[in-house]
């Protein structure tokens, strides 16, 4: 039975060292420089985005502790923030994350059929990942694309005016290219 405390187990990134490259460290410094001195806590959200992108698409306890050290914060300050915002994944996800909007305006335009069609195609329901670890499906709330509904977010991009055909194409292109097609 899933518990809301599930994510609390200590988790590490297997086979991956959790530390930024010199380039990324420079980026962290640039982010910190956006804020006045002594306000480096403000860099927490952007640095967590960067860490998630660098360390496997999710935030392990190890990653969060690393970010805490970088920004001189208590680990709990990072956990509190990471668990508050919906864009931070606290568990490993599939290679391609399909986030289908399900709020009112998208529902009016058939978002439920899109979710059903993805199940038909990939056999996954919201919250699940395909066995091969390629796709994770998630339903999300309004992404600010209501006029272009139904829509989903794939990596950095929005895919809008979805139809069955577009889902077919999207899945094919993700499956075809083994290098990340989502960014």
């Amino acid at each position, binding site marked *: 039975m899933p518990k809301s405390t599930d994510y609390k187990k200590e988790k590490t990134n297997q086979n991956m060292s959790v530390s930024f490259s010199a380039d990324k460290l420079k980026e962290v410094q640039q982010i910190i420089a*956006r*804020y*006045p001195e002594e*306000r480096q*806590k*403000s*860099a*927490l*959200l*952007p640095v*967590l*985005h960067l860490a998630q992108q660098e360390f496997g698409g999710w935030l392990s306890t190890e990653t969060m502790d690393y970010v805490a050290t970088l*920004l001189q914060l208590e680990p709990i*300050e990072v956990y*509190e*923030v990471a668990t*508050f*915002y*919906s*864009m*931070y994944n606290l568990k490993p996800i599939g290679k391609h994350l399909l986030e289908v909007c*399900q*709020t*009112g*305006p998208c*529902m*009016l*335009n058939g978002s439920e059929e899109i979710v059903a069609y993805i199940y038909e195609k990939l056999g996954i329901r919201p919250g699940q990942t395909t066995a091969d670890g390629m796709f994770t499906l998630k339903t999300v*709330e*309004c*992404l*600010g*694309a*209501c*006029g*272009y*509904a139904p829509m989903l*977010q794939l990596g*950095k*991009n929005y895919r809008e005016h979805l139809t069955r055909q577009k889902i077919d194409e999207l899945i094919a292109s993700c499956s075809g290219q083994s290098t990340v097609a989502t960014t």
Partner: protein
Amino acid sequence: MGRKLLLEKANVPGICTYEVYRREGGYRSVEKALKSLSPDQVTEEVKKSGLRGRGGAGFPTGMKWGFLAKPEGVPRYLVVNADESEPGTFKDRYLMEFIPHLLIEGMITASYALGSNRSYIYIRGEYVWVAEILERAIDEARANGWLGKNILGSGFDCDIYVHRGAGAYICGEETALLESLEGKRGNPRIKPPFPAVKGLWGCPTVVNNVETIAAVVPIINDGAEEYAKIGIGKSTGTKLISACGNINKPGVYEIDMTISVEEFIYSDEYCGGIPAGKKLKACIPGGSSVPILPANLLLKTAKGETRMMTYESLADGGFVSGSMMGSGGFIVLDDSQCVVRHTYTLARFYRHESCGQCSPCREGTGWMEKILWNIETGKGKMSDIDLLWDIQRKIEGNTICPLGDAAAWPVAAAIRHFRDEFEWHVLHPQEAQQRNYGLMHYADPIHVPNPVMA
């Protein structure tokens, strides 16, 4: 054809680049303000223009700027609210994506008026590419001397930074936004103190919506009086409306506030009517948190007057028979849609987005969602409808921030105007799984009582 002030140039090829934007007359307002106006004069212009906040509450912008505390030796901040997460709203994205320099230009002028040397754009985390567009635009502006030290030799220093959120509607609430910008959970602050006195890092701060700040550009360029001439009454200038739902032409429209709701929905210049020969059933005119109206009350006020796309007219009748301009998120439902199901998705949204700080919102939103789900799936009772009413009543007005109200209003309005549809779900649980209630009487002409002769 209405007058366009913000999106006039949106379709000029390459307008998102500095060269084209400048060639088309961009950054004139910064020149005018920094060279010929004092900061107070800029604020005065904005006051005179009648500009009202475009983020939802419609608070007069000039007055807000006037409230900013100016203690000696303490920095002041301008923060632009680009969190845009209210269902039905996607206008700011359009503006930032297509004419990012308009926002940057407005921000420089506004920062000058407010004395902010470091201004931030707080953008919702999902708009990754929009943030990149803005960062590019900022770099271009900096490279061309519009940002940095001693801009145009005026002695005014300013820089602009983009701060991406990470998925939380509540960070659109201005104090939650400031918390988030400080690297914390997006828990709204308890007011007072207000941001104008103690905002970002404890310093005086103004938070304004993207569209509000963009509107500063035409106000300074053309003068407050010109701007105030557009529109009706206290609804001056133009307003971006993002239209979605069951319409032929969803999208972002700039209206001068002189057209009727009917024209907006049916004219080809705007929404282009309802698709597939269906009929208008209901509409939420200002983003998901404002009251839903049935077709008849949407097009005409309870007094039988034509309802206009203005702050005042949309609110005519209060919550009994009116709604609100809100954020300009215009959601249209046709006669094949189910108000109960739509209301359920909104209740789910607010439950998901509650920060969880205060008990009425934390507990009440989830409760309403569960009851609505029961009604929608044929497990509801008649008493559930009254219970829902009572729950929303006990949330409204009793919470720390307006998210509680925003969660309560859609439920209240749906029950107020569509109670028979809720009852039908309860009385016909099986049938309600097969089909929707339909248009019924929701578009029937409203009965206007004869005015009493004076």
